[in-house]
């Protein structure tokens, strides 16, 4: 089975990047492609609990990414990025695993295709 790795390294709501990543993840997983998502850098804010984006007219990415398991996609969050932002694991939605940069590297090596989502500019 092909393995796709989706990397999200940008914060939610400033751009449509994280929402577009979600659409891609669910699309790939729906095509029976083994899909894993890594939140790294400011991407970890996608998993922050307690988001209320209706205040700025946006849909909740916290809710969206919480449903990834229902689509058969895995969610990984990089520990170093969580710690750099003074967050704790319990501040975030449940992930399949909190991974180290070394484990992130292994995922890159094991994947057949890597798609990175980061804000442009």
């Amino acid at each position: 089975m092909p393995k796709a790795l989706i990397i999200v390294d940008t914060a939610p709501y400033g751009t449509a990047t994280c929402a577009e990543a979600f659409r891609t993840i669910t699309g790939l997983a729906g095509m029976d492609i083994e899909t894993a998502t890594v939140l790294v850098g400011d991407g970890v804010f996608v998993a922050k609990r307690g988001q209320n984006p209706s205040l700025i007219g946006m849909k909740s990415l916290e809710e969206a990414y919480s449903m990834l398991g229902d689509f058969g996609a895995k969610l990984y969050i990089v520990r170093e990025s969580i710690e750099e932002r003074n967050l704790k694991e319990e501040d975030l939605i449940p992930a399949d695993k909190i991974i180290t940069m070394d484990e992130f590297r292994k995922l890159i090596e094991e994947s057949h295709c890597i798609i990175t989502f980061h804000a442009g500019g």
Partner: protein
Amino acid sequence: MAVLFIISKSPFKKTEPLLYLRLTRQNDTVIFIQDGVIAALGGPNEFKKELEEAIKRGVEILFLKEDLEARGLQTDKKLVDYDGFLELIENKEKVMSL
């Protein structure tokens, strides 16, 4: 496994180039293209340090010649032209772009 990292963002504007440098291992290649070639100036201290460490652990650092020269920049690192860049992409086991 050797991975090719393609970095197209300025290290002064974005922190992602630093993040991906940390993922590099021995025998990997990093090529700076587009605004990424601004790394030829060294970049912020943390980035500069990470780049030096990457070189020490055996990561090859390249710059895309056309993008570097278009911006009037120079580097003592190895330059690769468009054709060489395409060859790299074809020959590496894994390619990751930023």
